[in-house]
C-alpha cells in the first residue's frame, strides 16, 4: 500500500501551485470574475502551453503526460485552494474523460485540442425537472439520416458561455426517466438552433440555460456508451469535485485558524476559547476525512461499476456534509467579518456550499449507497 504521489505527480502539483500563487491571488480572482467574460483566458492558455498541465491526465498517444484520475485529483485540489474558475472539471475531467473512455477516432480528433487549450467543453446534463437523476431527461436526439436532431433545455450549464463544445445528454428513445435510450453527444457549441441565456453563479462562475431547437448534429457526435458511460464520467467528475472540495475546505480551515490567532476579544486571541479550539479541531478532522474519502474513491474509479459507484457515493456524501460543516463554522468563527464580500473566506464558503449539491447532495448519495450496498445485502 502506498498513498503518496510519485515524483512526476508531485512535480505537476508543485508546478500548478506555484503558478496559481503567482497568478491567482484573491484580488485577481475577484477582478477576473467582474469582467464581462468572467474569466481571464490567458490563464487557461498558460496552463495549456506554458505549463503543459492540461495534458497531465491524458495518454501519451494523444499528446498527454500519461496520467489519469490521480492527476485530475491533485490538480483539482490545487484549483480548490484558490477557488479557481477555470473550466478544468468540465473540459478535462468530464469531456476528456468521456473521450478517453470511447477512444478511437473521436478521442484522436478532440483530445489534442483540449491539451492545447483551444477546446473548452461544457457539460449540459441537468434539466429543470431532473434534480440529480442523470437519466431524468427530456432532451431528445432523434435519428435523422446519418445524424440527429436535438431538442430540449439544459439548466445551469457551468462554463457554457466560454465553451467551444457542449457535451450533451439526450434521449434517442425511451421515456423521461428510463436509462435505456440516453446517450452522450459532443457537439460544436455554436451550431444553428442553439441559444443560451448566460448568467453568473453565486460561487463566482458563469453558467447558462442552454436551449436546443432542431439542432442538426452529425452522427459522429455520439460518444457511444449510454448511461453506463455517463455514470462513469459523472463518477469521475464527482470525485474531482471532492478533490476540489478538499482544497476549499483546507483553506477554510487554515483561514479560520489564522484569523482566530489574530483576532483579539476580551484581551486575548479568540483562539484561546476552548469552544472555538474544539470546533477548529472538528473542522480539521472533517478536512482530513474528506482527503481520505477522496483518495478512497479515486482508487475505486477503475473498479467494476457497482463498487465504483458505492465508493463514489460514500465519498461525496461525506464530503458534502464536511464541506457544510467546515464552511459554516469558518464563517461563525470569523464573526461579522466572515459574512462580508471583502474577505476571501466568504467566497470559499460559497463555493463549498455549491459543491455540497454538485453531482448530488449527501441525501442523494446516501440513498444511492443504500440501494447499492445495504438494500442488496438485506
Amino acid at each position, binding site marked *: 500500500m502506498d498513498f503518496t504521489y510519485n515524483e512526476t505527480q508531485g512535480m505537476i502539483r508543485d508546478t500548478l501551485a506555484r503558478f496559481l500563487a503567482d497568478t491567482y491571488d484573491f484580488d485577481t480572482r475577484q477582478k477576473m470574475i467582474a469582467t464581462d467574460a468572467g474569466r481571464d483566458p490567458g490563464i487557461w492558455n498558460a496552463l495549456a502551453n506554458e505549463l503543459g498541465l492540461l495534458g497531465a491526465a491524458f495518454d501519451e498517444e494523444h499528446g498527454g503526460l500519461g496520467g489519469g484520475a490521480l492527476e485530475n485529483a491533485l490538480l483539482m485540489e490545487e484549483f480548490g485552494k484558490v477557488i479557481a474558475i477555470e473550466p478544468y472539471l468540465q473540459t478535462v475531467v468530464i469531456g476528456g474523460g468521456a473521450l478517453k473512455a470511447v477512444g478511437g477516432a473521436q478521442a484522436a480528433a478532440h483530445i489534442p485540442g483540449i491539451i492545447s487549450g483551444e477546446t473548452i467543453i461544457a457539460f449540459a446534463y*441537468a434539466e*429543470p*425537472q*431532473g*434534480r*440529480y*437523476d442523470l437519466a*431524468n431527461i427530456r432532451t431528445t436526439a432523434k435519428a435523422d439520416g446519418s445524424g440527429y436532431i436535438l431538442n430540449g433545455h439544459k*439548466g*445551469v450549464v457551468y462554463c457554457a458561455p466560454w465553451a467551444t463544445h457542449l457535451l450533451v445528454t439526450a434521449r434517442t428513445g425511451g421515456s423521461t*426517466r428510463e436509462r435505456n435510450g440516453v446517450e452522450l453527444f459532443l457537439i460544436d457549441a455554436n451550431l444553428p438552433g442553439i441559444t443560451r*441565456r448566460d*448568467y*453568473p*453563479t*453565486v*460561487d463566482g462562475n458563469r*453558467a447558462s*440555460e442552454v436551449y436546443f431547437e432542431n439542432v442538426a448534429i452529425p452522427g459522429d457526435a455520439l460518444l457511444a456508451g449510454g448511461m453506463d458511460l455517463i455514470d462513469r464520467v459523472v463518477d469521475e467528475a464527482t470525485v474531482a469535485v471532492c478533490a476540489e472540495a478538499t482544497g476549499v475546505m483546507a483553506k477554510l480551515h487554515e483561514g479560520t485558524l489564522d484569523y482566530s490567532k489574530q483576532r*483579539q*476579544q*476580551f*484581551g486575548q486571541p479568540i483562539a484561546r*476559547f476552548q*469552544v*472555538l479550539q474544539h470546533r477548529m479541531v472538528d473542522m480539521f478532522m472533517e478536512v482530513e476525512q474528506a482527503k481520505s474519502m477522496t483518495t478512497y474513491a479515486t482508487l475505486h474509479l477503475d473498479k467494476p461499476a457497482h463498487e465504483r459507484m458505492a465508493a463514489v457515493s460514500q465519498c461525496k456524501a461525506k464530503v458534502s456534509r464536511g464541506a457544510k460543516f467546515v464552511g*459554516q463554522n469558518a*464563517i*461563525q468563527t470569523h*464573526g*461579522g467579518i*466572515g*459574512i*462580508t*464580500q*471583502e474577505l476571501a473566506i*466568504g467566497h470559499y*464558503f*460559497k463555493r463549498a*456550499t*455549491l459543491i455540497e*449539491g454538485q453531482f448530488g*447532495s449527501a*441525501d442523494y448519495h*446516501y*440513498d444511492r449507497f443504500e440501494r447499492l450496498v445495504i438494500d442488496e445485502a438485506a
Partner: protein
Amino acid sequence: MDMEFTVEDLAFRDEVRAFIAENYPQELRGKQDEGDELGKEDFLAWHRILHKKGWVAPAWPVEYGGTGWSPTQRYIWSEETARADCIRLMPFGLSMVGPVIYTFGTPEQKAKFLPRILSGEDWWCQGYSEPGSGSDLASLRTKAVRDGDHYVVNGQKTWTTMAQHADWGFFLVRTDSDAKQQEGISFLLVDMKTPGITVRPIITLGGEHEVNEVWLEDVRVPVENRVYEENKGWTCAKFLLAHERTGIAGVAASKRGIERIKDIARSEQDGDRPLLANPFFKRKVAELQTDLTALEFTELRSLAGEAAGRGPGPESSLLKIKGSEIQQRITELALEAVGHYGAPYFRGFGEGDNEHPIGPDYAHRTAPSYFNMRKTTIYGGSNEIQHNIIAKMVLGL
C-alpha cells in the same frame, strides 16, 4: 394550565386578520417571502399604516403610545403578521431606543423622540459595535470629550445596520477612559446629519447592502442628547439587550418559513413524486417543525413568566440560540430543495435584463438568503456568547 385562546382572544385574532387583509399594501405582498431586498419606503409604508391605526408599538406602555395588549394578544399579533408575511418593522427605533428613552430619558427627550419613532419620521440605527469591539462590546473606544454643552465624538463604528437610511443613531461612547470598562460609557443620541459623520457601505455575502461602517470625526453632540447619567450608558445598553424578549426567537416568521419550504418541496419534482414525498427531505422538515414547536412553547412559558411579573432574564439566550439556528436551517433546506437552481446569481444579471429570473421564482433568492442568514448566530450577541451567558447566569458555572 391552559393553552386555549379565550373568546376575546379569538375575536381579537379575527379583528387583526381583517385589518391586515384590508390594509396591508398590495404591492408589498409576497415581497418578503421571496427574499427580495426591502427598501426604506417598503418598511415605512407599512409602518405608517400601523401608526395610523395605533398599532405600531404593541410592546410600549399605553402612556407612550402602546396598545395595552395582553401578552397573548401580542403573541396573536406576531403570529398573524407573520402568517400574512407582513414586513417586520425595523427594531432600532421601536424595540430598542424607544424603550430606552421612555425608561431612562428626560421628559424633553421623551417628548421630542418618542412621537417621531412612532410615526416613522425618524429612522434609527444602532452604533454599538466597533472593529475591535464585537463580542467584547465593553472594550469600545469611540471617545466623547465634553466641550461646554457638547460632546465631541471621535471613533469608528461598524456593522451598523441600515445606517445608510438613518436620521438618528444611538451610540455607545467612552466618556471616561480611566474608569473600569463598563463604567466609563455613555449613551448618546446622534443626529446622523451632523458634520463629521461618514457612512460607508459593507457588502455582505449575498450581495446586500445592509450594514455599514460609520466614521465619526469631531462630531458635536449636544449634552442634552445623552440618555441617563454620564458614564452610566452600560445600564441602558444592558437593559436594551435584555428587553427585547418577545420576537427574539422569530417563531412566527419561522413558521411561515417552514410552510414556504413545504410549498417549494411540493413544486419540486423528485423523480415521480414531489420532493416533499422524499423520505429524507420530509424527515428534515419534520425535525425542523418539531424543534420549532419546542421553541415556541419555551417562548410561551417565558412570556407567561413575564406576564406574572418576572422580568426578562438570561433564559432569553436560549430563545436566541435555538431561534437563530432554526432560521438558518430553514434557509439551508430551501437551498437544498431547489437543487441546481440555487446557483444562478440574480444580482449579477446585466443592467436592463428584465427577463424572468432563471429557474423557478422561489429559487432565485435561496442561496443569497442562506449566506445572509449566517448572521443570525453572530449578531445580537453571538451564540457562543449566549452559551456563556447561560452557563454563568443560569447554570451558575
